[in-house]
């Protein structure tokens, strides 16, 4: 089992979520984060342009069985990109999961995903 963590742009949340559901990956957990990378995002304050030091992003976590990893990653890659890819589109990383448990039933392992 793997944990896929994707940092994406705010406005892509709906698209990615729907694409994942289409690909039969229906269980996800999402949260608000802020990132520092190469992107800029300008606000105006009384005539001055100010760039925040951190930019709002969405973090998406998907716990999935090994055979689903590629599908999930591909789906995200396809839908989270702006056009041909824009700075700030984000990142995905994959970490190993040793055990997974469904709280409702107590089931463990792959079937609990």
């Amino acid at each position, binding site marked *: 089992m793997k944990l896929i963590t994707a940092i994406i742009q705010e406005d892509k949340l*709906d698209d990615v979520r729907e694409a994942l559901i289409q690909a039969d990956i229906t269980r996800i957990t999402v949260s608000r984060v802020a990132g520092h990378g190469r992107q800029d995002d*300008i606000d105006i304050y009384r005539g001055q342009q100010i760039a925040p030091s951190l930019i709002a992003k969405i973090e998406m976590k998907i716990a999935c069985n090994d055979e689903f990893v590629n599908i999930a990653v591909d789906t995200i890659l396809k839908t989270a990109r702006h056009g041909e890819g824009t700075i700030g589109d984000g990142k995905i990383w994959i970490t190993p999961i040793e055990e997974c448990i469904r709280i409702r039933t107590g089931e463990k392992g792959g079937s609990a995903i």
Partner: protein
Amino acid sequence: MDIDSGITAWMLISTALVLLMVPGLAMFYGGLVRTKNVIGTMMHSYAAIAIVGVIWAVCGYSMAFGENILGGWFGWNWDYFFLKGIDSSIMEDYRIPELVYAMFQGKFAIITPALIAGAFAERVKFRGYCIFIALWSLIVYNPLCHWVWDDGGFLYGKAIDFAGGTVIHISAGIAGLVAAFYLGARHGYPKTAMHPNNLVMTVTGAGLLWVGWFGFNAGSSVSSGLQTAQALSATQVAAASGALSWMLIEFAVHKKATSLGFVSGILAGLVAVTPAAGDVPVYGAMILGFIASVICYFAILLKNKLGYDDSLDVFGIHGIAGIFGALGLTFVLRAGSGADSMLEQLRYQTEGVLASLVYSGVLTLVLLVFVDKIFGLRMSPGEQKAGIDHTQHGEHGYRMNNLV
């Protein structure tokens, strides 16, 4: 006759109260949209106060209350241009300085286009919006106001429109409906759930609207006496019974009464009583408020079925309750008010309603097409996703919990 300091005091404060409706409306609408559009939505209300506020002082008052020109399409009086000629005139019949009257009326001109904005919330460009309301105020509002409230207007003295049912709520309501159709739905509507970002603010805004409405309706008596008191009482009671009615419906249907339903009921009651305020007794106002909520409730259910996107239900509340109030008041008029026969009065009322619906509806469409083609009005789906606040204003409404 001299100025009456008491009447003047009440008209001054009424003007301030109607001004309070602008932040009230901004809060009401602003709370209902999604977070990324909150500033843009509030700016729709605020922009009106600047743009129409200036236009009104320059030429709006003249167009509304000047002598008939162009066959009575609107009015004109060079004395009213920049309000120069009325700097120190006193209105003999009302016993107040004319400037107060001009300012009080100006607030109505400001609030009307701001109302429309709710129908196309979350999807118009700010620049286009500014141009649209400027033109709408000039071409739609000022003539309508002239017809109904200036003694040269062709509807004057027939249709009862105490504080602006036809001129304000119906004209804004139909304009909203036309705009909702012309501009189409928001990106993602109705598939995506679009939750109000801040109902707390919406509820607070409704409270301010209620307070402001006292100035709106009771101020429309242009006096500080019996009719003022009657108008205030009617307003208070209609709002309360409208809210109660909506609450009871929701208890019946959902077993839960929502706060949004409650404040929608307040609005429905207030809108319905607006044309009637000075001319109906308390129990009449109570009936109007009560029924208005029932009708609006079902009108909005119908809208959900029909599927067009009147985002904040401008037509569903202002249009519908406005029409209902304008017609319905016929049946609960205070003895002695209105025409000799109820039927005759109903005909007058219908004329007024139709005039407003047709005139505002058609001209709004023309203006929408014009502004959209020349200056651009509809935001692209990409801009809609990024939100009005960022794309149109370079700002974010809240950062209270953000790290950015």
